[in-house]
């Protein structure tokens, strides 16, 4: 071996060794922490024999639906960034394990039909699904993805910036690890203060819509609709009803929505509804919700979620049962 190369290999190994040791220690420490995914799974298994209504979705489903207020035994199986593909795969995985299940409530957000978790910034969440439930958006994660530390190392899966918060006991740790998640899977969002509410504005609403539009990819529409197709058929085979809903958004968000994209989304869902005789309940711009009900531009706060869950029970669940 070249003398220079030998010197480099020795010095580089010595340099990298402490970093590797620290990383191993961090990984070990983080492996002992539970996650919101594991917590939900634990509750789901606990109530498997009682669940009659199962709700899915992304953060819109997670924050906006509180199954405690349903007249039937419900469970919220939503999670931040959860896509329709994951909703479908989780449903198919759990259909046989929930003997009393009669209704699946599937929230469709503005972006859902053209969205996939692994195409966005939060793709690392997919690993948690794989590690916890054995499902993944990827049929087979690509070779490069398997090598990506964000997909493999807990430090990146949780986010390095949160490390100190995770290893100490503070409110962020509680939120990240799902400690605020109710036994039926609902995560409540705080009611903003008057000062925070006063800062709500159209420009930030537009920004949030833009953020969602950036997550939309035209080429995903077909495969997402196909997944829904298979889910409806599987549910109907098991004599389980399925309904689509769209949760409320604030005026600032509503005003920034592209009408063409929205009408495309609606017509795709309505076609599916017509094909399989399922219902679609659209609360996107529901006059019964005002700024006091929101946590931000597209998520309801604790009070708003309770209000919405009552409407859902009265107008959807009771009707569909």
């Amino acid at each position, binding site marked *: 071996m070249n003398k*220079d*190369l030998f010197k*480099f290999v020795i010095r580089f190994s010595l340099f990298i060794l402490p970093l590797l040791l620290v990383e191993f220690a961090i990984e070990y420490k983080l492996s002992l922490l539970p996650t919101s995914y594991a917590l939900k799974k634990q509750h789901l298994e606990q109530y498997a024999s009682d669940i009659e209504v199962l709700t899915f979705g992304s953060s819109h489903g997670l924050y906006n639906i509180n199954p405690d207020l349903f007249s039937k035994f419900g469970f919220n199986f939503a999670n931040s960034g959860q896509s329709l593909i994951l909703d479908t795969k989780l449903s198919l995985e759990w259909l046989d394990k929930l003997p009393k299940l009669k209704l699946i409530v599937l929230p469709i957000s503005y972006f859902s039909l053209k969205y996939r978790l692994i195409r966005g910034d939060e793709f690392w969440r997919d690993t948690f699904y794989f590690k916890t439930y054995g499902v993944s958006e990827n049929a087979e994660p690509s070779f490069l993805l398997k*090598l990506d530390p*964000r997909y493999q190392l807990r*430090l990146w899966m949780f986010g390095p*910036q949160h*490390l100190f918060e995770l290893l100490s006991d503070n409110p962020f740790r509680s939120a990240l690890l799902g400690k605020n998640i109710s036994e039926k899977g609902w995560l409540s969002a705080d009611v903003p203060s008057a000062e925070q509410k006063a800062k709500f504005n159209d420009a930030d609403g537009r920004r949030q819509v833009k953020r969602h539009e950036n997550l939309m990819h035209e080429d995903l529409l077909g495969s997402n609709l196909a997944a829904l197709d298979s889910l409806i058929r599987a549910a109907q085979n098991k004599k389980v009803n399925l309904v689509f809903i769209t949760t409320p958004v604030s005026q600032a968000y509503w005003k920034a929505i592209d009408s063409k994209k929205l009408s495309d989304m609606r017509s795709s869902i309505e076609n599916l509804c017509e094909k399989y005789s399922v219902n679609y309940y659209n609360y996107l711009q529901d006059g019964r919700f005002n700024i006091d009900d929101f946590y931000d531009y597209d998520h309801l706060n604790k009070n708003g979620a309770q209000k919405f869950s009552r409407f859902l029970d009265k107008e959807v669940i009771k009707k569909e049962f």
Partner: protein
Amino acid sequence: MLFNSFQYLIFFPITVVLYFNCPHKLRWVLLFFTSCIFYMALIPQYIFILFSLILTDYFAALLIEKSFGLRRKLYLIVSLAMNIGLLVFFKYFNFLSDNLAPFFHFFGSPLITHLNVILPIGLSFHTFQSMSYTIEVYYGRFKAERHLGIYAVYVLFFPQMVAGPIERPQNIIPQLRQRHVFQYRQAVEGLQLILMGMVKKVVVADNLALFVDRVYSNPHAFNGPVLILATLFFTIQIYFDFSAYSEIAIGSAKVMGINLMRNFNGPYLSSSFGEFWQRWHISLSSWFRDYVYIPLGGNRKSRTRHFFNILTVFLISGLWHGANWTYIVWGGIHGFYLILETGLKTFAKKSTSPGVLLIAIRTWFIFICVSLAWIFFRAENIRDGFYVLTHFFSLQGEGLHATFSGANIGKSELVLYFVIIIVFLTGERISLICDFSVFFQHRVPMFCRWTIYYIAIFLIVFWGKLGSSQFVYFQF
């Protein structure tokens, strides 16, 4: 592939190991394939555009070398037309069709439709690098390369193919023929550059971008102090972003024993506009100087012609950066600055060297003028640019506190970024006096050097925005 992606973290060491274990004769093959993989990680089919450029310019150069007179010129024109034609088609077609639409409409001609194509990444860079090759062969300053593979690697060489430095054939092609052996010193210097470039990009530039993007996406919603700060942040962001890319490119090539040209040399420490352009994006500035400004006559013609030449070069340079009037205005402002400076120099007395205080005042003045010009470079349109420029003292709109919290930047982060910026600018200042890398390598104890490396890695891991954002200059 992005330098700040995990793919590059895997791709680069593998390439280096293969490179030094590959027989010298086959190294061009390795560099050719790895460069193709690097480029194809973005939009694979666009590699064919590059191949067409390579073939055209390779054969054009051979024909230019063999021919004389008009025929020689004709081959050069064909090569330049191919390069510029591709650039116009992909980059400027929609801009031209938008701006010429009223004329077509006036004459009753049908409107030109919009092209729905994505600009191939780095097209402006590799067309300019390709053109420099045929022009150098035309002027007889470089012999046409016979080996198609070596020439292809000159255009495709992955560290600098998508955002420069825009290299001249004299610097790269002979190095591609040299037999490189692994050298400890070069590898360490290269890795130092990569590490520092990563800190500049993912810790400073990408985090400042959160604030800048928020403000510049809707400047009407913010008050004057926010607009001023966003402009200053963008001034730092674009420099840290682009110089980081160049440093990672230079560092990556250096590990493999290939020296790329320096692209930045402390531009914000310049005390005149002329000096700024000798220190900012040196490879592009020198390209325009050698292939546009000097052929136009440079400063050898009348004063009016000289000023016209300066303005022309800067307007073209602005247009090179993007198909938008904002870039043209940005170029125009710099042209105006330089014309004013050149004009004033004639009237100024020839004095002895200026004092430290005068240099400091001049440096700040240049920095402020350059920052003001960046407004148009960053603004979404001319109207927004003028809005920012004329509302620095407005008190209406969202204030600093709310904007920082909206961009998720806390006080401690702000202090951290400020400290890093000061450290880097101080390092640049020292580099102007002595060779900082030699000083760092030989005078600073290993313990201190390693501590600095660990701090850099710590900053990247805990504060860096990894893998998500492109380099600003990728769009050009």
